[in-house]
């Protein structure tokens, strides 16, 4: 990839992942200054250092320079290499934090990525592995990334603060992506979910299921929430429980919501009934927002549209999240791509809030490092 282009400069630790991911895909170096410069504890945190190490593992020839206080990071991307990798993620953030970046990069590796990630599978901050498995994988399939080796498996579940979870992710490589036309989300035909519990009574999961169903049943009868109770070594190091819900539409759109219990020793104990009810309401909020892509995956969809063939891609989204808005700005500075953005008012229809139609022409990105067989 081209290395002669000058580097892009940013300030602050926010949006670190998208900056490094876009830098890697575009081949442009980035320099991030003032990372928590005014903080009592300045510089990069453990989880960010772990993320940078992960980027180093999956690429070949990256140059990373961090100053002594950790407030400035220079990253010159190498080639995406892939292959079989293992990584111990920081327990300060969920595995979802790392997995989100991998989902953006995995299709463009030289060798198909097969990675084992260890850490926290479900927490209250990041999208859990369950949700990414249920929403991001079907989204990647829309772009033509599919195959037998495409899987995301939760081997062990780990809750904060101890972690101890394990996830296996493997993704095939593609030379080019298909453009998408997702303008009609269709209608929700079923709701699925996973109520999990580790190192607590398995009854917790059943109580969550009952309370969530009591709300969702008013809308649709086809609801099935699996209870997942992992035991022994597979249950990680800390107790906890939670619920993730996914609504599937007739056109293959997946909208999700999730909640997890407070980590051991932090905050008050949460009743499983309350958690189930609140999570069901969060799913209704997500349905109200609507669109063809779940709010956590908006940026993934927009990235793959940008990198697609030189053809028009369209996607209907709910309201843009702050993360997505910043991502759009970054796409402009890294790839010089600006989206056409049209607001679609909901009008008299009983289909939730206003939607946004995003249109762009792909830059025709092709994975040159993919080996021909």
């Amino acid at each position, binding site marked *: 990839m081209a290395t002669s282009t000058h580097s892009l*400069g940013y*300030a*602050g*630790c*926010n*949006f*670190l*992942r998208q900056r490094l991911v876009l830098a890697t895909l575009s081949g442009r170096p980035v320099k991030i200054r*003032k*990372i*928590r410069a*005014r*903080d009592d504890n300045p510089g990069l945190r453990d989880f960010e250092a772990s993320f940078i190490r992960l980027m180093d593992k999956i690429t070949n020839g990256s140059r990373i320079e961090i100053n002594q206080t950790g407030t400035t990071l220079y990253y010159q991307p190498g080639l995406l290499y892939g292959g079989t990798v293992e990584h111990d993620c920081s327990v300060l953030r969920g595995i979802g*934090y790392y997995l*989100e970046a991998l989902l953006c990069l995995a299709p463009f590796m030289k060798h198909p990525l097969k990675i084992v990630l260890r850490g926290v599978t479900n927490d209250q*901050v*990041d*999208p859990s592995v369950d949700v990414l498995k249920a929403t991001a994988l079907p989204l990647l399939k829309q772009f033509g990334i599919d195959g037998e080796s495409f899987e995301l498996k939760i081997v062990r579940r780990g809750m904060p603060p101890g972690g101890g979870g394990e996830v296996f992710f493997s993704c095939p490589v593609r030379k080019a992506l298909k453009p998408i036309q997702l303008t009609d989300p269709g*209608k*929700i*035909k079923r709701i699925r979910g996973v109520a999990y519990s580790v190192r607590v009574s398995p009854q917790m999961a059943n109580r969550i299921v009952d309370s969530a169903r009591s*709300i969702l049943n*008013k*809308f*649709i*009868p086809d609801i099935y929430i699996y209870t997942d109770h992992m035991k022994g070594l597979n249950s990680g190091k800390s107790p906890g429980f939670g619920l993730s819900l996914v609504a599937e539409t*007739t056109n293959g759109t997946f909208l999700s919501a999730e909640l997890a219990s407070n980590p051991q020793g932090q905050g008050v104990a949460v009743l499983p009934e309350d958690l189930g009810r609140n999570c069901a*309401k*969060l799913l*209704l*909020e997500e*349905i*109200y*927002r*609507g669109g063809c892509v779940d*709010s*956590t995956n*908006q*940026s993934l969809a927009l990235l793959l549209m940008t990198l697609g063939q030189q053809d028009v891609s369209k996607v209907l989204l709910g*309201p*843009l*999240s*702050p*993360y*997505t*808005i910043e991502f*759009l*700005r970054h796409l*402009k*500075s890294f790839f010089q791509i*600006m989206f*056409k*953005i049209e*607001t679609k008012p909901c009008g008299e*229809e*009983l*289909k*939730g809030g206003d939607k*946004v139609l995003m249109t762009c022409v792909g830059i025709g990105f092709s994975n040159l490092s993919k080996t021909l067989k």
Partner: protein
Amino acid sequence: VRKKLPKPSQEGGGRKLGPENIIGETSDVEDLFKEEEDYKEENNYSTETSGTLKWKEDLSRKAAEAFLRQQQATPNLRKLIYGTVTEDNEEDGGDPREEIGGLFHISQPDRECKHKADSLDCSKFLVEAPHDWDLEEVMNSIRDCFVTGKWEEDKDAAKILAEDEE
């Protein structure tokens, strides 16, 4: 009342003075009546000759105003997203430092954008103002998102079947 609208500038001036003076002095009231008669005459005059033209002028101005109002009401997402980028960069480039005695510079309290720069890096879109999903009307607002809701004309299975039979 509507007929007076096309000439707001002259009438507005007379009216503003009106209410203060009415209380004590009758002559002013008489003046006011006279003025109003004048206006009526003027209006009649205008409707006879160039009434249609004036109406058209007014319409275009009104349309322009309505357009601007709508522009301001519905946020222009494109400008919101891409327009602010350049401003952010400029702010980073220029360092507005106030120095005291040429030695110390005042550390500016963090502005909103600075605060954003070091906040949590998370893709989740949190719900800031949750709806009350126990209310019937709120529940109805997403009713048609489900297969159990009302379908569009061209996709309604029952309608299509009925048409096929015919």
